[in-house]
């Protein structure tokens, strides 16, 4: 991966904050050192900025490495903490504008408005993004870190913690939106002396990087969220299952675990109480299906990572047959804030049965690609046009794909629908983990469906027949359509087979695989028909060779 070499270095280097100033700084430059900016040499920017500031005789400024600032496509990003001034695409050999800005900061300077990309967001899971040094425990503590765990351990019973999470209305951010409080209660009540907490950090949806950003930008938060959960469900051991393709996230987690253990936030007798909880990391080897909870458990146990039918659910019979709580990274990341600020505060954000905020990875043909966190219930239009800045080159919006390979494509006529678990399902899509791929008129919807089908057939674990064979057959039928060689009978076959794969497959991968087909058929059937009947791809994407004139 391109970020590998860049990711390797900064971990060994100290933050250079202290080298530049003594005492509180008059001005601070935040340099994003999450994977995306790092791969664009943002660490060199940090070093160079420090050097240049020193050379310029600025003794009262600081340069600080922080986590994801959000506008990933415009990286490397540098923000002046006091004024909010944002520098995009900063090159290590051209940091003078930032140095100049640092010079000009005066005490009492007000933060300037940063535009809708930042101002329309509500940051909960990502509240420390772009503010704390991801590897510094002190920084995390200074930002209110571990206040929640302290309160839990000193003032609350496990029942109160669970009730609080239930009252907040938090639902699983890994895809299906299962009520988190209910899951915690099931695990707490399940029979068994040994219980486990697992953080699902296998994030495999194409284009999704919400969880990676959280792990890279605020790793202590996951450890705190997991510790609170462990207390609530009476677990003493935890695992973080992180995909090996995220080396920076893994490295930062390792650092965070080591420092948290040393400072008594993990291990035996946490915060001088009798509560014991420790965390280990397990690396996923790149199979999408290992994000499915039963496959993930098999993989942690050292077996082949394939799903098994549920019930029994992991909450009752999970890791080594013990009751196991599995939650997503973002779910755990929301927990400390909920405890610290109160369930009522969290429940007041959102719409309907979808409370709180959701992090999305905006990608595709949108101006501001990057990471955003918005209140549940925000309209798609607001996310794509106000926060996302609309479509590149002002082209017409065609559809937004949400929910990854189990999701669907939502057309322009539904842009004003709110983003909630329920409304997305009603629209034939899915919340999923939070990928949002924006498409304009240059996308062919049959081709999009084929892309996701190709993904699913490639990632099928091969255990059950309908998914192993059916996803490939669906792909073959879609391929036939995009080549202009399909008949209307093939289209009927596609729809029939999609229904069978959905109903007969063992796990969510196969059951969800037909969704992109269903949703594109629902909104863009005319495009399918154009390929089949007129032998024409309306978006001009598919290479359909025109049949030669048949001579009689």
């Amino acid at each position, binding site marked *: 991966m391109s970020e590998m070499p860049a990711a390797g270095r900064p971990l060994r280097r100290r933050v250079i904050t202290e080298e530049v100033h003594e005492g509180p700084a008059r001005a601070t430059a935040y340099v994003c050192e999450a994977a995306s900016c790092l791969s664009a040499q943002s660490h060199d920017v940090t070093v160079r900025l420090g050097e240049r500031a020193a050379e310029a005789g600025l003794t009262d400024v600081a340069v600080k490495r922080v986590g994801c600032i959000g506008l990933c496509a415009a990286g490397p990003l540098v923000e002046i903490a006091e004024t909010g001034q944002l520098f995009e695409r900063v090159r290590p050999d051209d940091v003078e504008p930032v140095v100049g800005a640092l010079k000009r900061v005066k005490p009492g300077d007000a933060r300037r408005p940063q535009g809708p990309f930042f101002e329309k967001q509500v940051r909960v899971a990502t509240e420390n993004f772009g503010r704390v040094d991801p590897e510094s425990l002190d920084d995390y503590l200074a930002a209110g870190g571990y206040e929640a765990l302290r309160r839990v351990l000193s003032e609350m019973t496990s029942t109160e913690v669970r009730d609080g999470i239930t009252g907040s209305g938090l639902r699983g951010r890994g895809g299906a939106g299962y009520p988190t409080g209910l899951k915690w209660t099931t695990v707490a009540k399940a029979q068994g002396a040994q219980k486990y907490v697992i953080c699902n950090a296998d994030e495999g949806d194409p284009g999704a990087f919400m969880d990676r950003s959280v792990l890279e930008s605020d790793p202590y938060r996951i450890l705190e969220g997991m510790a609170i959960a462990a207390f609530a469900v009476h677990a003493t051991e935890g695992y973080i299952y992180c995909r090996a393709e995220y080396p920076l996230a893994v490295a930062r987690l390792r650092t965070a675990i080591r420092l948290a253990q040393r400072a008594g936030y993990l291990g035996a007798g946490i915060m001088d109480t009798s509560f014991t909880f420790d965390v280990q990391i397990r690396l996923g080897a790149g*199979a999408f*299906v290992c994000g499915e909870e039963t496959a993930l458990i098999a993989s942690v146990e050292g077996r*082949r990572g394939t799903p*098994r*039918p549920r019930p029994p659910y992991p909450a009752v019979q999970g890791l080594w047959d013990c009751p196991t709580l599995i939650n997503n990274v973002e779910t755990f990341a929301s927990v400390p804030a909920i405890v610290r600020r109160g369930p009522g505060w969290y429940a007041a954000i959102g719409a309907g049965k979808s409370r709180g905020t959701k992090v999305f990875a905006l990608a595709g043909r949108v101006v501001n690609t990057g990471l955003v966190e918005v209140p549940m219930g925000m309209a798609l239009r607001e996310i794509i046009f106000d926060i996302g800045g609309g479509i590149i080159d002002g082209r017409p919006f065609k559809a937004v794909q949400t929910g990854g390979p189990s999701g669907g494509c939502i057309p322009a006529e539904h842009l004003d629908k709110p983003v909630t678990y329920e409304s997305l399902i009603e629209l034939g899509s899915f919340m999923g983990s939070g990928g949002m791929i924006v498409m304009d008129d240059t996308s062919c919807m049959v081709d999009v469906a084929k892309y996701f089908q190709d993904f699913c*057939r*490639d*990632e*099928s*674990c*091969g*255990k*059950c*027949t*309908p998914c*192993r*064979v*059916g996803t*490939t*057959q669906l792909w*073959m*039928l879609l391929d036939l359509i995009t080549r202009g060689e399909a008949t209307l009978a093939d289209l009927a*076959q596609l729809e*029939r*087979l999609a229904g*069978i794969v959905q*109903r*007969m*497959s*063992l796990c969510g991968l196969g059951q969800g695989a037909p969704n992109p087909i269903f949703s594109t058929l629902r909104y863009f059937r005319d495009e399918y028909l154009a390929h089949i009947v007129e032998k024409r791809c309306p978006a001009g994407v598919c290479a359909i060779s025109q049949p030669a004139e048949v001579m009689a």
Partner: protein
Amino acid sequence: MTTVYTLTIDGRDVAGSEGQTVMEVAEENGIAIPGLCHLEGVHDRGACRLCMVEIAGSPKLAAACMTTIAEGMEVTAHSEQLLEYRRAVTEMMFMERNHVCAVCVANNHCELQDTAAALGLTHFDLPRISPKVDIDASHRLFAIDHNRCILCLRCVRVCDEIEGAHTWDIMHRGLETRVQTDMGIPWGESTTCTSCGKCVQVCPTGALFEKGRPVAGGSKTKRPFLPWLKVVQEERGL
């Protein structure tokens, strides 16, 4: 004392003891539910998906071989829709690799064939995948023709759970999935295989066969030793 539950399967009142699966209770009561990965005596894995049934109150279908019975459960094991689904899944098994029955040792003694016949699968409409796959005839007595393997993993389980050799396992994923011997070496070079032949006996198709058998010369559907698997297991207290 085991608890006895009463339930209905296709509207018939039946009874079974706690811990039994829908598949077992159906079988005891003469209700045939198709299934090719299920094999009495080894663990079920719910993978072929032929035994999917409807359970009242649940929107999802459930694998009969993996679903334990409960008091008052209402199971629909046969319906027009289930028949269509099962036909399609059986068709997928035929379309996945190369099943040329006429030249197969298992012709007329094949559980895949029998399943297709019982379901009334008369023709194929789904796309044929048929990749080129291997045959391993390196073993002294047996051979495997991957063209006919439906990945039921009966061989893997019987070898591990009954024979205790664990010669068989699986490798790769999706359509590339293959059963393999000893970490992917030729069967004939396996140091763990005891040549007991149990895998050959339980294979539902002509994938695993004894060398030297003429076409259609198999005798797999009558496996006198199969009932023993169960007995052996029970005696071992498994």
